[in-house]
């Protein structure tokens, strides 16, 4: 298959949210001897840009955006480990550690944010739900995170966001890490009160906010 038509097919597949097929096409590209970075930059990145554009102008709904992101993520799982071997690494917008705070098991909002961040060029480590304060600090340090994202869906677990923030500041290695907070009961006022660097009301704005925080 000609390179360009493969890239076109990849874009179409991602936009249709065909998760398995996207990975298959990535594999096919590799089999044909293509550079994984080229597959990413000419196939998947433009697809995700297009998905974002379609979402912005109202042609795409959230499930379509997430499905595109999932399709991309699946293929990236295959392509990314191969990067660097040939010298070139994928350009990353930044590293994000994300999770739902301790005592809180709400998953979906945080997962959508993680998925969209990944698809938009961030390296994301998703710690899941009910994540202890210490775990956020540890992971932020070892992953050399630029951003820590804290999700809380209960007013009773929101104070944990402040605790993580304070714990990050106590450690030299994590002092400069930007902190983003989110979740249904979380407001801009709360974010300001606890001194968080970023806040967003929905997943798409979270990506914009994260880009702002890393200066992208």
């Amino acid at each position, binding site marked *: 298959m000609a390179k360009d038509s493969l890239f076109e097919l990849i874009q179409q597949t991602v936009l*249709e*949210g065909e*998760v398995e097929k996207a990975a298959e096409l990535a594999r096919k590209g590799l089999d044909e001897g293509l550079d994984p970075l080229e597959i990413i930059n000419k196939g998947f990145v433009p697809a995700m840009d297009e998905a974002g554009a379609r979402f912005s102008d109202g042609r795409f*709904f*959230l*499930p*379509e955006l*997430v*499905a595109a*992101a*999932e*399709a991309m993520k699946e293929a990236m799982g295959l392509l990314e480990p191969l990067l660097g071997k040939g010298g070139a690494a994928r350009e990353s917008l930044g590293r994000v550690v994300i999770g739902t705070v301790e005592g809180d098991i709400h*998953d*979906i909002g945080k*997962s*959508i944010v993680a998925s969209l961040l990944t698809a938009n060029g961030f390296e994301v480590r998703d710690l899941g739900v009910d994540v202890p304060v210490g775990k956020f600090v540890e992971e932020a340090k070892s992953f050399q995170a630029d951003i820590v994202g804290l999700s809380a869906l209960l007013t009773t677990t929101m104070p944990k966001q402040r605790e993580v923030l304070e714990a990050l500041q106590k450690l030299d290695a994590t002092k400069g890490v930007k902190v983003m907070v989110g979740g249904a009961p979380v*407001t*801009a006022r709360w974010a300001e009160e606890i001194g968080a660097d970023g806040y967003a*009301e*929905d997943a798409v*704005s979270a990506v914009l906010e994260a880009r702002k925080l890393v200066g992208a």
Partner: protein
Amino acid sequence: MKKQPIKPIKPKLRLEFLSKEDILRIHEAALKVMQETGVRFPSSKALDIFEANGCEVNRETQVVKIPPSVVERALKTAPSTYTLAARDPANDLPLDGEHCYLSTDGCGVEVYDFETGEKRLSTKQDIYDSARVADYLDAIAFYWGPMVSAQDVDASVRPLHELQAAFMGTSKHVQPETIISEEIAEYCVEMAAMIVGGKDKLRERPIFSVMQCAMDPLGHDGGALEASLVAARYGIPTGFMPMPMSCATAPATLAGNLVVTTVDALSALVLIQLAEPGAPVFFAAAPTAIDLRTGGYTGGGPEDYLLGGAFNQICDFYGIPLSMGTMATGAKLPDWQAAVDNVMSTMAPVLTCTDMLTGAGLLAGSKVLSYQQLVMDCEIYSIVKKTVEGIEVNDETLAVSVIQKVGPGGNYLAERHTLNHMRGLWRPTVVDRTPYMEWEEAGRPGAFEKATEIARDILANHQPEPLEEGLVEEMDRLIKSAQKELENKGV
């Protein structure tokens, strides 16, 4: 900006407001009133027809006593299904007992200026403009009224100007409630015949129909009756709309109100069938109750909702389509009251699958046109539509395989099943669901502001399918000569 096809409601959800026994008792009560007390028909032509068909006619009081046998005979000849044709056949409305069609509200006298919010008297231009907006909106199936009165043209030929402006503004079916004399009815038929290519064609494709107000209780208007007899002769569908108000023009009790509503709507249909057996007819009604403090029209309230749902069951019993007065809130502004009234008054008759719902876009008890209200009423209609279409249960919609695939704690966002079915979910046009901060940054827009934008866009950009070249001028000439003829007759 693209015009979408008309979206009728095909309700799956049904509600019984009356039992079979209730309906029979109302029917029997109505028959008793028609036979023993009678109904006033102030038209010698109408009285002649009743007399020729064996009814007891009192020429002095103009009251006709109609025996049950005559009512039954008339009901037998009335068609239970037919089509309201439109200038553009794509907008034809089959009254098949399975669909509900929303129209505009009508007969208002003022307009909320779009930009300033100031109230002003309505003009012919407002009819053209409101018809254009109705033409664009897919929730609106036909143009009723006209929405407002053309108060800037000569009163003697006003209904002709109004019909012309409506035909120019929309290629959907038009149903005026202003054709209230024989002469005007003839001219209207002539005008519509120009569009479809003759009176025979008009009989095949009646692109307008005629609604009249009844004179509750137990009476009609002479001019309206004679105008409808003319229309029926040309195959134009006709209907009579009682608006009995409990405590004033109907008994305080709702069952009693339904008896008056039935008598007033049915007695005129009997006349039309006796005169023109088989002519398409429809019931119409906007029964209500007075406000107990002011005695005024309420434009909403639980009585309206109940009567609105119940009367269609009676019309179904007779096997004749109904146009029910819905929406038409008494609220002066497009506010909370307007929303409550218009949701409930639409939901109730839709739950009994009422054929025509009349209508959207006026405030203050059908007096003031508001384009924002019109757009918001269409959103109410779309919410009701989605709700009454119910829940489909089959293997595909049960979605067991995707439930098992996602398993505990996962999510369905990126699943193929979701992508395939998500567009079946209702989506807002003016209802606000934006995140708080986004809403605040946008200047806190509510439904009203969004509706303003939509209406502004339609008014600025939507052009209806034009009438054939030269037709508007031909209509102008018709109106001019009609005015002269009426002057000579001293009308």
